[in-house]
């Protein structure tokens, strides 16, 4: 079983290799192969999920082999409760994203499928890496296929959006690279000159860094992740990237890529630099809450559906960050499940917008109206996904929001329920912007004659949305299936952090 993670990560890469031998004109075979390999990765990951021991808080399925000897860098992979669900999310969404773009991508289809598979490799690698250097390689490698997906298969203004996406995220990650190298050297001073980027080792070493330097490190890592999330005010690349990206690109971007930011915060920024986390936590939580409300208000007035969903992501991910920085079990577990929820519901929303776009080639809300009448099945699925997004109890979004809000409400680290109370207003605003959009697109009379003969969803389109809807309901009704997997790791993380809380107080008193 030690190779199961490697198998999952590199199955899509095998697909890429296989595609080299396929004639670029044979579109159907190319798409089928792409689907087959991404589905295979999903099937293996289901095994992983079933075999994963939820009661064990530590890394599982670890496989480590020395890679660059001079720097003591290894190929080192493993999953715990925090990364498992994100691996699942990635392998689940990629085939659906491919299926959703089955007919809408016509230009150099082979390259497109290859890029999607490469993207999957990058994302999976990010979630399973237990070596910072390896992590960084995947982190950066994933930028390239995304850059091309936006830049080649995107909308009119795609070049601007692609470059903006690339440079924005690159800026953050370079700072992180500096921090990683610094960490490696710092470790070597304690390790008898042995440079290391091993994450497990660093969990114990990094928190010993004095607060003044920790602050710098926290910000170097944090900024990189904050841009990715994206947290207010680093979010402006997102609407552009989403609007220009093709449907599948948006699905992956919103569904998985943004989670790399929140995952990074939880996996590295918080446990590596606990003292700095305590120090700056109210500010981070403050930005998260601003993001929740600001994202929702700006989403409300967007004339373009895709931009609306993009800004709604800023709001939803604000919830995730708030939950993580509450540093309570409820908040962190809520944050983790909310990452999955956002991937499902926002991924589905982008698929839905793509379905409308495929039919009418516009994303402007004002072009639609009364679509329910001609597309009733579509209307039902759209409604369920919308309700998931606004956090209706019984569906997935509520579980995440509830846990996050209650976790933030009771958090001693945040110190005041004000964050949670302000964030809860985002729940009201979510209902406003989603339902208002839904009303203008789906209800009323059909005023635009072009909308009169739209076809309802095809079997393929149903096959894309139904699996997502199943999980939307599953997580809403019986979240334990998933929460049980993340419980032990979360608990251990919180306990470790708590341990440094007392240490921190001692350090500051000595400092004074």
């Amino acid at each position, binding site marked *: 079983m030690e190779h199961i993670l490697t198998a999952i990560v590199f199955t899509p890469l095998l697909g890429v290799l296989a595609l080299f031998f396929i004639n670029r004109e044979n579109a159907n075979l190319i798409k089928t192969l792409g689907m087959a390999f991404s589905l295979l990765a999903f099937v293996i990951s289901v095994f992983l999920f079933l075999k994963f021991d939820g009661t064990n808080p530590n890394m599982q399925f670890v496989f480590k082999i020395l890679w660059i000897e001079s720097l003591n860098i290894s190929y080192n992979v493993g999953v715990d409760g925090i990364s498992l669900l994100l691996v699942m999310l990635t392998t689940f969404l990629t085939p659906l994203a491919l299926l959703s773009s089955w007919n809408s991508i016509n230009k150099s289809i082979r390259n497109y499928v290859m890029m999607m598979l490469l993207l999957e490799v990058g994302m999976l690698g990010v979630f399973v890496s237990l070596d910072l250097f390896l992590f960084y390689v995947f982190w950066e490698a994933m930028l390239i296929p995304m850059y091309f997906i936006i830049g080649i298969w995107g909308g009119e203004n795609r070049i601007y959006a692609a470059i*903006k996406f690339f*440079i*924005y995220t690159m800026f953050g990650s370079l700072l992180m690279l500096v921090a990683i190298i610094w960490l490696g050297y710092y470790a070597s001073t304690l390790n008898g000159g042995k440079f290391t980027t091993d994450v497990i080792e660093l969990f114990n070493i990094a928190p010993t860094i004095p607060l003044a330097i920790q602050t710098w490190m926290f910000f170097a890592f944090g900024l990189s992740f904050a841009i990715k999330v994206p947290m207010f*005010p680093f*979010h*402006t*690349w997102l609407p552009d990237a989403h609007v220009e990206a093709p449907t599948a690109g948006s699905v992956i971007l919103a569904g998985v890529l943004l989670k790399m930011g929140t995952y990074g915060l939880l996996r590295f920024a918080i446990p590596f630099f606990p003292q700095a986390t305590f120090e700056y936590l109210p500010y981070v939580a403050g930005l998260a809450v601003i993001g929740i409300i*600001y994202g929702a*208000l*700006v989403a*409300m*007035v*967007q004339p373009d559906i895709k931009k609306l969903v993009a800004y709604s992501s800023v709001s939803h991910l604000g919830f995730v960050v708030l939950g993580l920085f509450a540093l*309570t*079990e*409820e908040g962190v*577990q*809520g944050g983790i499940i909310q990452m999955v929820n956002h991937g499902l519901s926002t991924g589905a929303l982008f698929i839905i917008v793509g379905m409308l776009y495929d039919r009418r080639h516009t994303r402007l809300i004002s072009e639609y109206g*009364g679509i*329910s*009448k001609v597309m*009733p099945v579509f209307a039902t699925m759209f409604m369920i996904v919308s*309700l998931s997004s606004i956090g*209706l*109890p*019984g569906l997935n979004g*509520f*579980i995440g929001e*509830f*846990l996050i*809000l*209650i*976790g933030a*409400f*009771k958090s001693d680290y945040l110190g005041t*329920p004000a964050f*949670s*109370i302000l964030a*809860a*207003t985002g*729940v*009201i605003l979510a*209902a*406003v912007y989603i*339902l*208002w959009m839904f*009303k203008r697109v*789906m*209800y*009323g*009379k059909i005023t635009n004659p072009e909308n009169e003969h739209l076809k309802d969803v095809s079997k393929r389109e149903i096959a894309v949305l139904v699996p997502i809807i199943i999980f939307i309901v599953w997580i809403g*009704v*019986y*979240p*334990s299936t998933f*929460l*049980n997997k993340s*419980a032990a790791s979360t*608990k251990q993380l919180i306990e470790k952090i708590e341990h440094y809380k007392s240490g921190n107080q001692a350090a500051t008193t000595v400092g004074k």
Partner: protein
Amino acid sequence: MHEYIGFVVLFPFIGFLINGLLGSKIKSEKIIGSIGSGVIGISFAIAAVIFFQMLSSPVENRSHIIEIFNWINVGSISINAAYQVDQLSIIMTLVVTGVGFLIHVYAIGYMHGDKGYWRFFAYLNLFIFMMLNLVLADNFLLMFLGWEGVGLCSYLLIGFWYEKNFEKGTTNDAAMKAFVVNRVGDFGFLIAMFLIFITFGSLNFETVFGRAAAFSVGDVTIFWIALLLFVGATGKSAQIPLYVWLPDAMAGPTPVSALIHAATMVTAGVYMVARASIFFALSPSVMLIVAIIGALTAILAASIGLVQNGIKKVLAYSTISQLGYMFLALGVGAFATGLFHVVTHAFFKALLFLGAGSVIHAMHNEEDIQKMGGLKSKMPTTYKTFVIAALAISGIPPLSGFFSKDEILWKVFDAGYWPLWILAAGGAALTAFYMFRLTILTFEGSPRWDKDKHPHEAPKVMTIPLIILAVLSVVGGFIGIPAALGGSNAIEHFLDPIFERSNRILALGHHEVVPTEYILMLLSVVIAVVGILFARHIYLKRKDIAENLSKKYSGIHNLLWNKYFVDEIYDATILTPTLKASDKLLWKFFDVGIIDGAVNGTAKLINIISGYTRRMQAGFTQSYAAYFVAGIIIILAILIIR
């Protein structure tokens, strides 16, 4: 039998799944309607058996918890999907499934020919499912699921005819308004829930209420919990300041108005306050707020109802007003009496709405009572049952509304809140007046409708529910005949164990019958009779009085006609500024202008700088030579100066 309570909840859900997934393929209205109503009928039957078993079992053995599964288990939170069968929840269950069943049957006829027939029954079933979760939940979170769930169903059903226009917008504007205003209330509920959790470490009713009993009266945390719960209740139960969605909710099909916006969902707030009565008993100041809001809502809504012309609109305001009475009761500590009024109100208000639906049906979707009149002879069953309901809501003995309303008035007076009693009694007079204004303009006098309309009595499937509800409206009050009239107030005694803790805190004993009670009783009957006679006099004999009054006091009439301009005020102070600020200030100015401007500005700046530095490597040997010489000079200069 109580262990089968899960089935009471499950059957409506099965109905929802069958009609929702297969309805479009079944096509037969008969089958869809039978499934839709049948599942509710079964639920009602099971609930009835549970109820009678409860009656025959000893008092201390009437409350049971039935666990279904563990819903959420994270950190210190553990929440079960579990149902609590006790005196309070079983009464609500009977009302929801019983009245709900009659309305489902009625809808078989009412919705005949509608192309969304299956969708309608699926939504109605889903509504019942959610409502049952709300009233049967054994913890706040599951209750919240039902709470938001009924809000969703209300949203779906108000906007059911999504192509139809309604007032200034579409039906969906009304639907959205309902959902969003409710969510504002839900915000209060949510925060209250968080406070409850951190204070008591649980969301389970029994645990929380048991621990709450140890708190002292006037505790600050309890104050906030009670107040925030009440904010939630003002949303769902349409009280000041969140009542504005309910009148617009009439955009939905009439059975929806009857079921959701009159008989059941809107009473959820009353139920919730009653369930959590201990918090209110511990915070006298919140109790006072509840009572005042209730009384004010009662009179405010009644005053608006005086002048409205939409048959459903008048009923909608009367619902808001009656809900006000229920909160007034809760606010003075008469929890059981509030619940009593929930029950009787469910009978007569459902009847009124269904009767109105029958009229609207016959008049081809005409809702303006100024264009009706003389329908008495055309639809006798509807007329007779409607009058019964109108008499009941006006408080004429021995109909059901008399007992419950009179009990509320007496409890208010007995608690010493005589200013509130005056408001409530005034509201009662207005109620009698506008109900008979409505009845007379609709059914009596000479016809004012177009000749091409041929109103006729509704089919049996619609009139039979009317008749059953009429019977209930007459006898429903007998479950609560006060001691003063020789009764035993059965419902109050039945509910006693539920409110035992709260009543102990409030130190409310069983009061002695005093002469004042008879005087007040007589007074309230006189008030109602005068209101009715006054309405008859004006609208049957002297229509000029009404016209003169509205001309003479055109300012007041205008104010009432426009519902005190509350919608307009909300629009101007909250809605429009938020939208404008978000659009102009946050998005276009701040997001695009400042943040993105800074990002793009940085890129431009780098571009400009590199535009200059680029020139250094233009490839001209002369300039390279010049840089070279300049460099040497600078180095030399530095060396010399040092």
